[in-house]
């Protein structure tokens, strides 16, 4: 399996192990992480990711096939987290091994752009700490202006 949806913390070294290939001189990884962001005195504590499990793996595999075919990549690994992901943690890791670096960079960039557009995954913000003087609250804000990466 080179496309995964995981509710556990993502591991870069696990992705790296899938990309061994003596004919690939270049490996590019992209890691999307939940980043700290403030808005109106609130601060992101985490993002909640959900997905449609009936479709998501087929969509990821389709992207993988495109990267192999269109960019000459030789190995691709895609893993996206679901559930609550805290600030600083990875929500997505993409790894590409290719003979040359231009291919690997292009394929990795293609994959993250397409993943955001074409793969049924949604995030919603979890906010922490109201402005000083207000009580602490945590509530979803599904169409947040900010997106990691």
């Amino acid at each position: 399996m080179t496309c995964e949806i995981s509710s556990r913390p993502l591991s870069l070294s696990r992705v790296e192990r899938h990309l061994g290939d003596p004919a690939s001189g270049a490996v590019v990884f992209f890691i999307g992480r939940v980043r700290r962001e403030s808005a109106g005195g609130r601060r992101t504590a985490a993002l909640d990711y959900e997905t449609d499990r009936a479709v998501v793996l087929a969509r990821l595999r389709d992207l993988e096939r495109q990267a192999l075919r269109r960019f000459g990549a030789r190995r691709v690994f895609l893993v996206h987290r679901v559930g609550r992901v805290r600030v600083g943690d990875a929500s997505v890791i993409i790894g590409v091994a290719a003979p040359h670096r231009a291919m690997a960079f292009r394929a990795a960039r293609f994959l993250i752009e397409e993943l955001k557009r074409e793969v049924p995954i949604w995030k919603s913000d979890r906010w922490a700490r109201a402005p000083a003087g207000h009580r602490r609250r945590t509530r979803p804000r599904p169409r947040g202006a900010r997106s990691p990466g």
Partner: protein
Amino acid sequence: MKSSVRVRFFATAREAMGAASVDREVPASGSTIGAVLSGLAEEHPRLKPVLKGSRFVRNGRYVGGPRARVAPGDEIGVHPPYSGG
């Protein structure tokens, strides 16, 4: 024998519906995705604008548009714009 389809809602569609899924009766001869969702949107007006920007899935495959047929036992997914990454 089932006589309904299950419609599953994600992200803003789920919030508009206040539910992750509903079951909806359809004739034994089938119906269309458009007809099923229009019926739901009449009962849940907040769903209507969400449907406009959404893609639809039937039994794990994207459908071409609202005229796609559905039969009892089918599962429909309503996908607002994606925001992963």
